[in-house]
């Protein structure tokens, strides 16, 4: 029974394919999986928008949307109808073709990433040997669409937003890659399926997730920062920083194209959260050996939603950085930490089992973190202040 539930989608697909001649089966199988992905994630996106608005509402002591449907859960449908029926405005001087293509390129590139993500046991569209590489290649092409949008709009704010976006995404692309290299080093494979398999082991009932090692924790932290920047989320939402650039690169988009940008952004968040879960949180594996009876895909989506909640929480709390600070942070803090982490991961590998490698690896990372933090603060004279009073 547990087995069946775990594999229910796989079995369902096989059962459906059995009605078809054998020659058609591989092609139709792929189409079926793609349709599922294209169906599931926009639905999840709709749910997440409500979750985000209600969550931020609660953080701000408001109720959030509560008028459409019970507790406002039908809000995304209303939003969808609104954006579909809205007039699609293209600026007179815009480069119409590029302006039209940009949101499509974004959505396509974002969805491509899901091809290699294992969403459950045996639930992966393509088990590529270089899965991680494919993912980053696809992830990097979203930058093109952002720049297309910003450039073709012929709007100064769009242009500024696109410039910011490209600079930011390229910088953090490096950090993203370097922070995930440690996982590749330890698991010895670029295939995401193998990476999950390597983490799906348990000792004393606890899983061998990479986040539970010093280098894995540091790597996950760096990956989280880079992922937030990569998806333009708060506190790194400068390309669309409302108070500065109106809406950044999609200032001139309206109606359904705007909705596509919105969708692309959220789906990119899902996909990067899924990658993070795969790399550091054991993908679809259960957090405790005793909990393995719960289907694997539920764990994957559970971890995804937890990551989303963290994104929402950060968005409701953190102000945004400035462009130069953001770049400084990427090149002067995240990148060195990632490189150090590579070294620490190597050290970990060659030190063998024992408490000593825990102590040494953690000490190196903590010292570097504290040192860099303090150094930065002293250099820029930042810090809490005391104030004087006049009677």
């Amino acid at each position, binding site marked *: 029974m547990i087995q069946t539930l775990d594999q229910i989608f796989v079995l369902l697909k096989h059962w459906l394919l059995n009605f078809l001649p054998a020659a058609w089966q591989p092609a139709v199988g792929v189409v079926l999986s793609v349709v599922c992905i294209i169906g599931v994630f926009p639905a999840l996106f709709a749910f997440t928008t409500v979750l985000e608005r209600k*969550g931020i509402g*609660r*953080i*701000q*002591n*408001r*109720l959030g949307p*509560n008028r459409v449907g019970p507790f406002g859960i039908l809000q995304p449908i209303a939003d969808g109808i609104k954006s579909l029926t809205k007039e699609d405005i293209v600026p007179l001087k815009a480069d119409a073709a590029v302006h039209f293509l940009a949101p499509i390129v974004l959505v396509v590139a974002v969805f491509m990433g899901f091809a290699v993500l294992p969403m459950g046991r045996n639930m992966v569209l393509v088990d590529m040997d270089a899965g991680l590489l494919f993912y980053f290649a696809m992830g990097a092409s979203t930058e093109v669409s952002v720049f297309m949008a910003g450039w073709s709009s012929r709007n100064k704010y769009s242009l500024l937003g696109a410039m910011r976006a490209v600079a930011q995404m390229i910088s953090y692309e490096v950090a993203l890659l370097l922070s995930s290299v440690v996982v590749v080093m330890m698991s010895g494979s670029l295939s995401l399926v193998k990476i999950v398999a390597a983490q799906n082991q348990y000792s004393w009932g606890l899983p061998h997730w990479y986040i539970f090692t010093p280098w894995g924790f540091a790597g996950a932290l760096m990956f989280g920062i880079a992922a937030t920047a990569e998806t333009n989320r708060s506190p790194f939402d400068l390309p669309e920083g409302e108070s500065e650039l109106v809406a950044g690169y999609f200032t001139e988009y309206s109606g359904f194209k705007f909705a596509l940008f919105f969708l692309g952004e959220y789906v990119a968040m899902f996909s990067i959260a899924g990658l993070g879960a795969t790399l550091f949180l054991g993908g679809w594996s259960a957090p405790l050996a005793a909990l393995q009876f719960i289907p694997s895909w539920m764990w994957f989506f559970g971890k995804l939603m937890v990551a989303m909640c963290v994104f929402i*929480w*950060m968005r*409701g*709390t*953190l102000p945004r950085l400035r462009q130069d600070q953001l770049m400084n942070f990427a090149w002067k803090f995240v990148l060195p930490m990632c490189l150090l982490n590579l070294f620490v991961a190597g050290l970990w590998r060659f030190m063998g089992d024992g408490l000593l490698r825990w102590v040494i690896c953690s000490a190196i990372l903590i010292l570097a*973190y*504290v040192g860099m*933090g*303090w150094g*930065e*603060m002293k250099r820029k004279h*930042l*810090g809490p202040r005391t104030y004087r009073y006049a009677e």
Partner: protein
Amino acid sequence: MLGEGILKGLAETAKNFAGSFVSAERMITVQYPEERIAPMEAARVFPFLVYDSKHPEDSLDWEAGMRCVACQICEKECPPKCIYIEKSKDKKPDFVGKMQIYPARFDIDISVCMSCQICVEVCPFEAIKMDTQFELATDDRFGALLLDRKELAKSNEYYHHIHPTEAAEVDARLAAEKAKANAKVKAAADAAVAKAATQPAVPAAKPAEGNKQE
């Protein structure tokens, strides 16, 4: 610069998130059309004209009991000049029985009115007061936002209902004024009676009749 400030901030928002489910004090939002806060006694929206009436439900009573005497002070003092008054040609008795001019036309353009309450303050006759009714949206921009005499007239009972404390004070003041006026009238009547005793003249019955009217 180690991120502890950020963590503190995150803790604070988490506290607010959890607190919003627990404490009602944090959630100050009112779900407006379903939930309503009782209007505050001091609240002011647009002015109305008070009339005294024995039968507030009687639709014809408003004209007779209107306190306004068309003195046009409010029209003059109104900062955005949204009041428009035409005096009547004839006179009718007011609440103390004195013959007074009444407003033949009294319009307030509430699209111009800014709810400042200055008309209420300058009115020496306690005739104009502030309403608390605020749901006045209409699709007729020019006609429906110009309130005429009839639309502006509200009974003293209504005034008591929306501003109980203030209305009680006003009533007390008016009663005192009236008593004073009555005493005067009475004195005048007495004098007239005394005069009538010496020489036959018209009996002073008319002011007494005016007294009865409330």
